[in-house]
Each structure stands twice: as C-alpha cells, then as structure tokens.
C-alpha cells in the first residue's frame, strides 16, 4: 500500500526531528497547566481544553503540515520518493495521513497530561466529555493538517507555503468574521450596511473551522448549544464543516500537484 509507506515515512521523519519534541513539550505543559488550574472545579476541564485546542491546535497543525510537500519538492526529497512505485496522489494523501497521525499523537499527549495533572491536583476528570473533546480536537488537528498539506502541494516553494500558512492562521483567527461585513459594505455602495445580518453571512461565519470546532464543542462537550434552531448552529454542521476542511483543500492541492512539473 503506497500511501501507507509514504505516511509512515512522513510520520517517522518529524518523530526524529527536534521541532516535534518542542511541540510535544509545549502541548504537555499547556494542557498540564489547564489541568492544574481546573482541578478544583469539577467538570471544568473538558470545556477549558476545548478553548485551548481552538486556539493552539490550528497553529501547530499548520506548522506540522505547511512545509511537507513543498519542502520535499524544493529540496529534491520528492525525487527520491517518486522514483519508487507511488503516484503523486498517493504521495499527497500519504503525507497528509502521516502528518495527521503526528498531530493526533500531540493532541492525545496533551489530553493525557491534562487529565493526569488534574488527577494529581485532586480533581476528578470527567471521562465522557473529555473523550468527546479529544475526538473533536483530533478532528480539528487532522482538518488543518490536511488543509496545510493541500496548500503545500499546490505551491512550488516553502516560502510561499509559509506565507499561505501564516495568512490562513490570521484568517481563521480573526479576519474570517470580518469578511461578510466587508462584502456587505462593498455591496452597499461602500457605505455601512443597514438592517439585520443576512443569513448567508451567518452561515459563512460557521464555515470557519475554528468556529465549527467551538460550536461542536459547546454542544457536545459543555452541553450548552448555541441558541436558535438554524441548521448551521448545530454540532453536526460543525463536524461536517471540519470534514469538508479535511477533504476539499487536500483534493484541490492534489489535483494541482498532479498536473504540474516538479
């Protein structure tokens, strides 16, 4: 199985590199601190970890993925891999899976550290919500890693991939919510729009993977779903959005990669 061999190679290489240990250390410390701070409040850990994951996992996932294909294309590593019986698509998919596994291990290490610290501090970690938060965290990590690998496959150099990854982080973290307002401003003849926010703008807001993760976390982990009964405020819409982020950019990047000169 080609994608498996490539995935293994990708999971293994960062395993031996220094940056991975730095990531791992930061995960364990940050999640451990969250476990420590919430150990006196029962039932607070899972919710706290959802907040931590939303902020921190996308950043690390972009870092884990953005160089993958572009760097190997730039330095010639790809010329070795593609000298063996693997297709370009298999290489991209295998890379995404390998890096997603690394990301999942980081998230898992963080959750284990948080739970252990919480236990030692006298808290009682709530297993059910923690497990759901963990699963959502792994899904968010996999989505962003997959996006980053797709981005990496569609550009020629690591510099461009870095610019793309940094821009993406800014977009996800803040600019996303401003885009509908900007579009409405332009549509309104460059003057501030009046009236209630249209539904398309509300839907667009929920398409941000971080928002999607937070919405799903609120409902499935903390049990406090968003008010209203619109389909796009449900946890399952959030999960669907994450799955789309996992698949669509990867396929787009893969097709571009497939058609280009290396």
């Amino acid at each position, binding site marked *: 199985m080609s994608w498996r061999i490539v995935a293994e190679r990708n999971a293994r290489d960062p395993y031996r590199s220094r940056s991975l240990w730095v990531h791992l250390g930061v995960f364990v410390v940050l999640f451990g601190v969250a476990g420590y701070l919430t150990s006196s409040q029962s039932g607070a850990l899972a919710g706290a970890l959802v907040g931590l994951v939303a902020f921190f996992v996308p950043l690390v996932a972009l870092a884990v993925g953005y160089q993958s294909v572009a760097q190997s294309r730039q330095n*010639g590593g790809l*010329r070795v891999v593609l000298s063996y019986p693997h297709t370009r698509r298999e290489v991209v998919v295998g890379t995404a899976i390998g890096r997603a596994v690394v990301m999942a291990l980081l998230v898992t290490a963080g959750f284990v550290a948080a739970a252990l610290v919480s236990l030692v501090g006298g808290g009682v970690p709530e297993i059910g919500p923690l497990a759901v938060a963990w699963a959502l965290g792994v899904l968010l990590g996999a989505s962003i890693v997959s996006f980053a690998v797709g981005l990496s496959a569609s550009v020629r150099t690591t510099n461009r991939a870095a610019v793309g990854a940094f821009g993406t982080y800014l977009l996800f973290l803040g600019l996303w919510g401003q885009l509908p307002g900007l579009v409405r401003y332009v549509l309104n003849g460059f003057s501030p729009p009046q009236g209630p926010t249209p539904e398309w703008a509300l839907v667009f807001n929920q398409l941000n993977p971080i928002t999607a993760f937070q919405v799903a976390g609120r409902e499935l982990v903390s049990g406090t779903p968003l008010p209203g009964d619109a389909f796009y405020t449900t946890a399952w819409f959030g999960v669907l959005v994450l799955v789309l982020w996992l698949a669509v950019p990867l396929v787009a990047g893969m097709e571009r990669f497939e058609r280009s000169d290396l």
Partner: protein
Amino acid sequence: MTALELRSLHKRFGDVVALRGVDLTVESGEVFGFLGPNGAGKSTTIDIVLDFLRPTSGSASVFGLDAQSEAKRIRRRIGVLPDGYHLDGHLTARHHLEFAIDSKDADDDPAALLDRVGLGDVLDRRVGGFSKGMAQRLLLGMALAGDPDLLILDEPSTGLDPNGARRMREIVREEADRGATVFFSSHILGQVEAVCDRVGILADGNLVAVDTIDELQDAVGSKATMTVTLDGSPEGVLAEVRNLGGVSNVSLDGDGTTVSLSCPDHRKVEVVDALRGDGATVLDIETSDASLDDLFAAYTEERA
C-alpha cells in the same frame, strides 16, 4: 524488446527550449550511456521518463508503458538514481533501504544491498552525516532493490571517489549480466566508455549522435594524443606502431626518444607495449583525453 523509447520529445520552460525533438530507442539488455555537457538536456530527458516533468510534445515510454499515464507501473520495474535528490537526514540508511524495498514489494536484505555498494557498517547511521559520495552509494543500493529490469542513473559518478566509481562500473556490469538494461547519463566521456554498449550524445537539446563506443572513439581518435618518453630510441618499432589500428600522426620528438601520436583510448596499452617491444623502458607517459568538446566538434563537423 524495447526498454526505453523517446519519440520527438520536446520540452520548453517558458522561453527556454530544453529539448528540441529527441528520438531514441534503447533495447532491452543494453548498457546505454547518455552523454552531454551540463545544460544539454540530459536531466530534463530523464525527468520526463520518470514523470517528474511533462513533455511539451512528444512521448516517452518504458517497456511500452507511457511515462505519463503509467508512471506507477513503470516505477515498479525500474531502479533510479535521480539527480538533485535529497535524503531525509533524520532517517538512517536502513530506513531508506527499507523504504525502497517496501515500495518495490521486494525482499532484499538491507545489509546486503549496502554491502554491494561498498558502504559496509553504516546501516544504522543517520544519513544526515553522510558525504555526497556515501549518499550516492546509498541511493544506488536503494535503486538495486527488487532487481529492476531497467536502471536509470543520472550522473551516478558525481561525488564518488575512484573506488566508488569503480564499484559503480562493476555494479553496472553485474546488472547488465543479470539481464537488466542500464541507462545512465554523464558529462564525462571516460565514465561511460568503459561500460557502455552504445552512447548517445545530447547537445543543446538535440541528440547529435547515437553510436557504439568503438565508432565513437574512431570518430574522435584523431583528437586524443599521447606522448611517450623512453630511455632509448624507438625507431626500430615505429613501423609496427604505425600499423596499429586507429594510430596516426606518429612523430619522434626531442632527442629522438620521445614519441607523440594520436590514437583511440582503447589502443593506448597496445601502443605502449609495442614501443617497449625491443626492450626500451618507458620513462613517462602523457595523455590528453579526447574531451566531450572534441567529441561534439567531431560529430558536428561530420554533420555540417
């Protein structure tokens, strides 16, 4: 059976034309040397065969399989030493060899492959600390995994010391004896003439010649000169030397003990033996090899 076939292969990068219609057929079991100066288009040609690059027009096929649409099936049957490669420094030689073996679905022993390329006991060392020559040997070992039907070696001697270069030639011969086809590129004539059945010469995106090594050497023989200094006069054997095939421009210099002549490389030993025929001792031999430039000159003059 045809191992490799290029048909009217063109490749343009923006304004730069790299290949201007290359036609070439390499038969199964041949050892084929692909010669040309840097920038002639050798790597571009090989990259198209490996589907790293897509041709602007024309086609490349390996064992009848199209290089673009059936790349994976081709890669199952070939062993590649690519140019401009990068090895993952964090991984060991064993990891790299296992990647090659697993990818090929082969059952080679990593240690045995490493041994074949003369890299002894570095199996579990990270390749980050490898020299260029060691990396080159490792890649050759990887390429040998699964007994490929066709070996494609892009500038295989780069960075190799004389021992490494000799091992490389031995392996090329061993693989050819096993029945494999070998296609390798070089910009140095000396590296291909020792092992190749046929040679193709690429210059500025055109294949200017495809010939056996003997015909090639005959074509450029007049350009290779040798000067031999003896401890006595060789006049008694000069006639014999002049009669050797391919030898020309024989002249006696200095105080009558120095002979200069032109001859193809593979005649040099016979020439020296003949000069020593009546007991003279050879004090010094100087040779100037036919360079690729001479080779191109010979072929382009012939064509003009």
